[in-house]
């Protein structure tokens, strides 16, 4: 009985959560012309012409590849760097440690519109404008990620590290062979979060690149929002396509959170 109620509740929540996304998908199956109305939404008109159109006209494949390349590189960089930095902030004492911790939080607290002018100038001066460098380098260490990992490592007991240190293990070995496996759930969350943020990032790619060959998916999709009208079917089809890679990443990494590790063993 309790079980049945739980399932009913879960299914209800599921419907609430996915309905707007279903709406998005449904609109993407409408013909390219026409306005958005209820008759159409409920009608039996289904067509994949928009999906075909997206890949044949325009350069959506280029945008997808750019987004994938940038997304994977940035996610990889963040897993490595946020982990290192978060670990350092949690476990070590060094010059200006507090300052560096606060700088992480500080960057998060300033509205991006205020710092975008000097950042834009900087990217130009560094010769990075309209390159992959502009899309990747500033984002290889993400403040939220550092903060997340630091918080997570704070909760882990350091007995195993101490034991390893007594056994004469080097710091790198401790970092990557002992602490890293313990952080798997947090790193999985980090990976999902970073990939997701990057995949949907619009403002920076739009401002920091210009040419079609450097364009990422969100910028490509934004072009479907015209001055006076939104090209709903194309925008919704592109957005539906954009969901798929993130969903795959999610499914891949969420297992790390599910299976996790028997962390209990190392906590007294």
């Amino acid at each position, binding site marked *: 009985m309790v079980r049945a109620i739980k399932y009913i509740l879960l299914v209800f929540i599921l419907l609430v959560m996915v309905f707007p996304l279903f709406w998005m998908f449904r609109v993407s199956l409408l*013909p390219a*012309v*026409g*306005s*958005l*109305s209820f008759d159409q939404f409920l009608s039996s008109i289904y067509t994949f012409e928009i999906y075909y159109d997206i890949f044949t*006209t*325009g350069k959506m494949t280029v945008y997808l590849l750019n987004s994938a390349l940038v997304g994977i*590189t940035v996610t*990889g*960089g963040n897993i*490595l760097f946020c982990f290192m930095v978060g670990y350092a902030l949690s476990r070590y004492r060094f010059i200006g440690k507090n300052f560096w911790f606060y700088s992480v939080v500080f960057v998060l607290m300033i509205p991006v519109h205020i710092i*975008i*002018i*000097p950042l*834009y*100038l900087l990217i*130009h001066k560094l*010769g*990075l*404008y309209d*390159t*992959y*460098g*502009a899309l*990747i*380098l500033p984002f290889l260490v993400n403040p939220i990620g550092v903060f997340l990992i630091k918080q997570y490592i704070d909760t882990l007991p350091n007995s195993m590290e101490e034991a390893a240190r007594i056994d004469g293990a080097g710091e*790198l070995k401790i970092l*990557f062979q002992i602490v890293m496996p313990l952080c798997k759930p947090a790193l999985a969350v980090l990976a999902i979060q970073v990939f997701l943020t990057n995949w949907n990032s*619009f*403002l920076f790619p*739009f*401002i920091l690149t*210009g*040419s*079609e060959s450097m364009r990422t998916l969100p*910028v490509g999709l*934004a*072009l479907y*929002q*015209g*001055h*006076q*009208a*939104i*090209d709903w079917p194309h925008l919704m089809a592109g957005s539906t396509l954009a969901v798929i890679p993130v969903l795959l990443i999610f499914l891949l990494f969420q297992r790390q959170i599910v299976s996790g590790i028997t962390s209990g063993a190392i906590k007294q």
Partner: protein
Amino acid sequence: MKKYITYTVIVLTALMALSCDGDRSSGEITLEWWQFWTDPAIKPTIEKIAADFESANPGIKVNITDLTWANGREKIVLAFSSGTAPDIVELGSDWVPQFSSADQLAAIGKSVGADTSQYFGWSPGIYENEIYAFPWILGTRVLYINRSLLIQAGYDQNFVPFNWEQLTECCYKIDSIGKDIHGFGSNAAEKHRLYKKFLPFFWSSGAKILSDDGSFSTIASDKAYEALKFYKELSDSVGLIDTQRRLEDAFLDGSVGVIISGDWLLKRICNGGHDIDFITTIIPGPKYPGRSFVGGEYLAVSKQSQHKAEALKFIRYLTNRENQLLFCKENFSANPSHKKAAADSFFTGDVNLQVFYKQLNLSRMPKIDEHWPEIEEIIEITLEDVLFNDAPMAEALYQAKLDIEKLYSAK
């Protein structure tokens, strides 16, 4: 671990290498052009015109950067503020003065010279008697009426309202057809859109925002009051209040009889998918056909540009008669700035496009200066207060007058 480091180093080196190919061959000039026409239906035309220009002018290359409507202005502002402006930039008519008054655009008056008489719409490009921006594609707003509803309301199929009284009557009659049918599409508080739908009535009644010498505001006048009263009554009694995009949807599916819109709606209808019998007409004035709002896209050369002459040459090429015609035909734009292009039979021979042509000749561009964006906001706030919060009209207009005058006395 080593693998990670090696991998990272390789990636970073590759990125650095990729980012350093910016060196362009000398001897050839590259013009950077930032523009907004990104729709797959029109982008090829833009590219074609640029390519034609390149082959007609060996040694000059045009590099196009696409901007999005939602955020393009931001990027332009960033570029100008940080000294990395493109050579040529497309600007909306209401943005131009913010750039020209800040001394960011190259003066082109001397080079354009006598040719100004061949084009419509110079006023937004002019600042302190100098020309800074070239009119390209203009756009005016006209009245759209659903003819089926008109006939249903008991009108003859050739009926066209030409003054306020007739407009009011026809909106009321259409509104009374049924519960789900509204007479008039009235804009909600929507930034940059609401005031554009009111100003036609304001100007048609003979009201003005500023006095002729610009020394004080005339927005609080009997004529302005009449226009506001007319608009509010229409909106209150038979108005469907929504955003412009949704009003257009409502017009297309027949739930609103009369709306004000631009040539983009014509494009939507012509693209098919809508079964609608409609007419367009000049926006009615108190007694006779009135004035409308006109805005548009302008082309400007940045002051920082190293290739001003070539940039202007490209602008002249884009805006010449043939290329304007080509562009407008592909894009369903109704109002090219080139007078000869505008008078082409393509426009004058079409029942709807000729309405746009006539309306353009009756249209008005607000006297745009660097305070225009603020004036725009003052008018919008006034309209919101009166239309949606029932603020007393006379007081609201008077407050708008004081607020506008404050802008000018501050300097």
